[in-house]
Structure formats: structure tokens, C-alpha cells
């Protein structure tokens, strides 16, 4: 046991940092999903499945039960990205085109069936206004400046 502990088998981080990071990852994944929901690409079903898998993965280890999700995670190189980059990042996400590349352009039938349970049509969301990054009379650095910009501004 002594030798086991000597090997520092665990990492200690501040709770503030860990939970802020975890919460932020959850929130931003939700924001991405809402962004795609506003434009509803033809493969929004698979995109939702991937993003929900990431959301569940924030606190749990979800089991992939659907074949279409299994295929989609392979398409976005889930395992390789996680190992090579220390964490899974959705490299094929394109927020300018509001879609995820490298997955089928249209939802497979099984996905369509799974996403239409209850037979209700999704409520369309209004496209979000892009944050104003240019200086205004109210905010010198725009509506939503980056923290690095604020630090640089303060000096």
C-alpha cells in the first residue's frame, strides 16, 4: 500500500477549478446543441445524439446502445481524439455552417424514428443574435469580451 501511494496514483485539483470547468463544458455543449437546433441541419438527429453523448459523459459513462450513434462516434473519431488530445473534442464541429462534418449528411432512418417519439414536431427557435464584439458607448470592449482581452485592457 505504501508503494502504491508513493506512485501518486491520483491527481489533486481545486474544486473551484474542477467544477467550474465541468460546468462550463456542460453549458457550452448545451449551447452548441441549441445553436444547431436553431438551424436544424439535415443531420440534426445524429448531431443531437453525439452532443447528448458528450453531455452525459460530463458526469457519467454512458453506454452506447444505438447503432447509429456507435457509427457516428466512430466517424468523429471519439476514441482516437480522446487519447491523442487528452479529452474528446468535436473537431468536426463547424459553428459557421452550424453542422458537424464527417457524419452522414442526413439522419438514418433508425435515428429519425428514435428522435420522433411522441410524434411532436420540434418547435423552431429564432436564430441567436451574434454577440457584439465591437466597442460601443456602453461597453468599451463590446458585449462579450474575452477574459484575456479584459486583462490586457486593464493592464
Amino acid at each position, binding site marked *: 500500500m505504501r508503494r502504491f501511494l508513493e506512485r501518486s*496514483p491520483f491527481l*489533486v485539483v481545486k474544486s473551484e477549478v474542477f*467544477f467550474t*470547468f465541468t460546468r462550463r463544458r456542460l453549458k457550452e455543449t448545451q449551447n452548441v*446543441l441549441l445553436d444547431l437546433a436553431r438551424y436544424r441541419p439535415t443531420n440534426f438527429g445524429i448531431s443531437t445524439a453525439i452532443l447528448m453523448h458528450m453531455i452525459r459523459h460530463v458526469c*457519467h459513462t454512458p453506454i452506447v446502445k444505438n447503432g447509429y450513434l456507435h457509427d457516428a462516434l466512430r466517424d468523429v473519431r471519439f476514441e482516437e481524439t480522446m487519447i491523442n488530445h487528452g479529452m474528446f473534442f468535436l473537431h468536426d464541429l463547424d459553428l459557421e455552417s452550424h453542422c458537424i462534418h464527417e457524419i452522414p449528411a442526413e439522419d438514418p432512418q433508425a435515428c429519425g424514428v428514435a428522435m*420522433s417519439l411522441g410524434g411532436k414536431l420540434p418547435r423552431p427557435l429564432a436564430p441567436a443574435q451574434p454577440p457584439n464584439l465591437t466597442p460601443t458607448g456602453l461597453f468599451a470592449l463590446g458585449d462579450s469580451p474575452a*477574459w484575456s482581452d479584459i486583462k490586457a485592457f486593464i493592464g
Partner: protein
Amino acid sequence: MLQELSDGLQTSYQLWLILCHGGEFFDTFPADNILEILDNRPEVYFGTAHIERRLAREADNCISCRSTRTAPVHDGVEEDESDREQVSAEGSGNTSDSCESSAGIVQSSGVTLPDQYPPAVPTSLKKQHKIMARSRCRPSRKPKAPKTSVCLITLEPRRFQLLPRNRQRDYDDYFNGPSLEDMRMFASMGGLESQPLDWYSKPTIRSCWELFRDWGYRLEPEFAHMFACQEPQKVIEHILPPPSASITLKKSETMECDDICEMGMQDMIDGAGAEGSICSMELFVKGLTADGRWVKFNPRRDAHNVPPSNYTLSYDIDSIILTSDELNLSGDVEIEVLPYSGRTPPIPKSNHSYVELLMPQSEADIEAGGRSEWYSISYSVSSIPHTHFAKIGPFKITIHFPRMKHRDPINDRSATLIPWEVQSLFLVEVLYPAIMAGENPSTMPYKNFTLDEWKWKASNNTRFSGASRTVVVSAEQFDAIQLAMREIIAADPDELGIFASFYLLLEGKGIKLRTNCIIGEGEMDPYETLCQKIPYIDFEHFKKRENGQLLMDLGIGFHPTDDNGEPLVCLWDLEKLCESYDAAGMNKGTTHHTNTMANYGGIQAEMDQRRRSLVQICFRSSYCLHYEAVRRVRGGEISFCNDVDAYNTNSSFMKSIDDYMKMLNGGRKKTYGVRDEIRGSGAAICKVLNNLPSLVCSSRVNHKLKYLTCH
């Protein structure tokens, strides 16, 4: 057909009632006794369940059907007793070992003695019956040491230790039962048999009495034993074995590349900008920085240095699993008197506890007279048909019926949820009489009810029946009930034989808070605390091999404290943890990645079967306690909404995310350490508990806990 006829009668009767209420007139009117039968359900009057049982039994004994089942599957397989082959249950280490054909033959009048067991499973039997591929004869198996390597702890091979036999009476009915060939009863389900009949649109639906029947499995006295002998071997060495030193060197190498940016958690929070901005989404989800570089995530950049003395090491006993054919308890027991009505059985997934079931004889062995085949297979207790039986304190007792073990012919999964009809038969014919046998006139008014009466008493209203109803019996009565149940079943083997060979399993989960102790502080360890707080279970009694199999979960917690009161979170390093698991001889198991982090999370794995048998540790689980912040009911259950809610971006989706955010926000002010759980025999866990304080204290004094510092 019988069920359809009964249902049709009911439907016609209901239709007739509606028409009569609607003003229709008919020439003939049913007699009063007929109306009474229809009012009280015709299946009850005609005893449909009884007829179904009889029919199923007749089908079992049908000579024509039996001759089809006993036809040889593989041509050219000779019934040569000389081709017996010593094959381990793990399928490795084959060595030829011939034996005398008469070595293990026991006549039905005699009792099996240890020296009469056959040495190995014949290859011909394995070829003829696929199910026998994993079978073995534990009593006569050659003792083998687990595989050895540089990093693995070497162990001495030990022979499986048998319990003393009763020379007057067999432990179970080994000479009357179905054969291996009878297991093929539904093997042809994919063919003509499963097709709809021309006059009936539905495919063949099996009666529950055809499926939940005696399939020939029997128990040997050592059925509950997962380990070779009473004393564990080198168990301390298998507790938290250290990972190799080479990993740290590998970890210190950093990735240097122009389009890669190594970032920790704080770096990403600082560099993301405002929440919800494109930059933030790209950084946290896509892993792309504002300057167009890919993120290489390295949480070691956020490592917090904790002084060695600032760790609290705790230990506890988190759960208990006790398997025995006879549970002698010292407190009042609440016995369930209604059928179990859950969607899943009481033990829905493997709890890493196994029992050894004796396989049925082959037809050839039966025809030869007596029994020479004593081959068994280890099965998870969760794969055996079982139902709730009783409760005592925080412990639940389930009753398991190994004779009814089978796979569903439609989905090929183990059928473990016992149908209501079968449970009702057990309650009415076995349990209620057994309870009543030990009662006196003063308690009769509280306990003497029929199944329908109990259902009515348990019901909340006219539409919904209650799920649970119990009667309290004393410890002495509980012992008497178990004995009476066996006697009742033995008295009517034709009707109640399916319930014979039953055993009981007592399971208590989540008792860590009752037994938690700080290592090196206080006078009592978790086992002593457990014995003190749960006096109605004699754990010393059940630690002994002859009284069943006791499994305990030992939890070891590591909790950091910061000098400045800063709340901290610990994360298991998966690479080092994997090395430790490998050194302990664990199987590959399941790895859980916290927030998709490649190298941080938890691992769960069972120990290699041969090693487990000697060390007496069967399962290990390591996880980070920050999971407790969002854990609701049971570990592994996910409370997020469904994908379809996210697809529709409805309120369920928004609420479930908000709830998790709230819980995660709360976590920022709390400390969460890490935990390692080891499931092993009572003897093994007690041995560890005795040694753990001295191990921790000595390492604290001599090494000043420098190993706990995270750099």
C-alpha cells in the same frame, strides 16, 4: 390454447353483459352456477394453472419428443471413455489425463464420496453438448497456480476443499431429473414449431410451466463456494499493489507542436471568454483555441500540492452478500407474502457473486445406471431465477431456484424474473403452509390468509394492488420455516420439485456510513463496528466455509485537506491505476473516463478466476468521489433527459441541464477524494482490516507520507 380459450370465455361473457345492459334479449340464459364461475374467473374454477402444469409435465415425458431430443448432434463422436481430457474452466492449460470409466459411478442408493469424482470432462460430452464446454469437476481438478509474470504475485496452487459429506443422505436429488438432452427441448424453435398455425395467427407462445420447469440443475454442498479453501493466500499483497515506475517518466513528456496548445482546466476557463460565445463553444466543445490551435488537454497543469499529513484515510464495509442454503439469523425477519412485481428481478445485474450448479446427466449416463457425471458450471447469482423472500434491517433476502434456470427460447437471455403464476404456486403451496406450521392460535388472525386475501389487504385502492406485504417472524420461526419449506417440497416432488434445491441470498448495500472509520483512529475497525451495529447476523458464523459464502466490500477512501481550507477534488490516474489492477491480476474490466478525459476516471474489474480462487478477492472498483455530487439512486444511473427531448429542445432538456449545473455549482465548495473498493470473502477482508492500520501508520512514520504529495 387453454389460455386463449379462457380469455375468449371471459371476453364473450363481458360482451354478453354489455349487450344485456344495452337491452338485448336472448332465448337462453346461463345457469346461476355458470354465471358464478364466470364472475370468479374461469381459470380459477377449472384450475387452468394446474392443467397447464400437468400438460407441461406430460410433454417432458413424451417418448416421441424425448427420442427427437436424444438423437446425436454430431456424427462420428464416439462414446469412448478413454478420451477424457483435463480442461480448466478458463479453457486453458489442456493436459491429457485418462481415467477409468467406472471411477465416479455412484449408484442411486449410495452417497457421493470425494474420492469417487471423475477426473475430467470427456471431450465427447463437450462435443455433444455445447453448454458443457465451460463445465468442470471442481473436487477432482488438479490444483493449478495462476499464471505468473514479473509483475504478478506468485501463489501456491491449492486443491478445492470439500465439505464433509453426510453419509446417510444425499445433499440433493442427483438421480431423478431431466437429462442434458432435455435441455434441447426448444432448440428447434426457429423452425416449423415457431411458425403460426394455419387456423391461429400467432406463433407458438410457451406456457410459463414449460419454461419454468426442472431443467436438471442440482446443487452440491459446496455450491456457494467461490474460493478453494478457508484461508486466503497473500491477500495483503493484492491490496493496492503499486504501479510500475516507468509511467511517470512517460507522463512528463509534453507534446510540443506548432498547431497544438497544451492547456489545463484553468487555462481553458481563462481563455474561453464569455460563456455562450463562439470562442467559448469552440474551445470547450471543438477543442480549438481563438488563435486556431488544437487543444491538448493536460489537467496536470492544475495539480494542487497537498502536504502529506493532510490526508485522511478512511475504511468501511460498504456491502454484504451472503449465500447459503440455510440462513440462521438472530433477529426478527419480515417475510414477503406477495409475489414480486418489479420490471426487473431483485438482482438485475451481476453482483460478482457466483454459485456452482451441477449440470444434468447425459442420457447415456442415466442409461448406464447411477451417476458418473459430476460436472458443474459457475453461474452469476443474477442469472438464476429468483424472487424476493424476506427483509431484516437494511438487508434484503432473495430466494433462488436453480432447477428452473434456463434461457428464453425467443431472446436467448437468462430468464430470471419468475412469472406470477409460478410465484403464486410457491407462496400458496410452500411458503404459507410453512409459516402457518410454526404459528400458534394467538398469531393466526394476523397471518392466516390466502393469496387473494393478502392481495386485497395490500391494495391501496380497487384498481392498484400493493407491491409488498410482509409478516414478521422470530429468528427461531425463520429457521423452522426454511426447514418446513424443504419438507413440503420434498413431500410432493411432482408438483413442487421445481422449487427444490433452493438457496437464499442476503444482500445489504450502501452501509458504508454505518461502518465508516478513520484508519489509525478509534479502537474499532469497520468489521467490529458492523458486528456491533448489526447484532442479528452472526458474521463469525458465516465466515466459516461450512456455513455458506460471505462476501464483503471493503472501501478505502483517500480524502485531501488543504491548509488554507481550499476545497479539493481527487482524480484517479488511469494509467497508474491500470498498472495496479494488472499487478493484482485483475481482468481487463471497464474503464470510466471522467468527462471524456483520457487519463482520469475509474476502473471496475473482476479478478482472474484462478487467482480469485486462492486470494479470495473477486472484484475491485476504483472511482472518484466527485461523482457523488450528481449521483441520485444507484451508481451508473443517468438522470439526464432522453435524446428526443434534446432534439425537440423542450423543457425537460433545459431542466435536466439546469439541475446538473446547480449540483455542479454546489460542488465547488466541497472536497471530494477518491475511493477504492475490494470485494472479497469475509476471511480475506477481515485479514486486510487487521493489517491496514499498521500498514498505514508505519508508512506515515517511516516515510512521512511523501508519497502522497502530488507534483
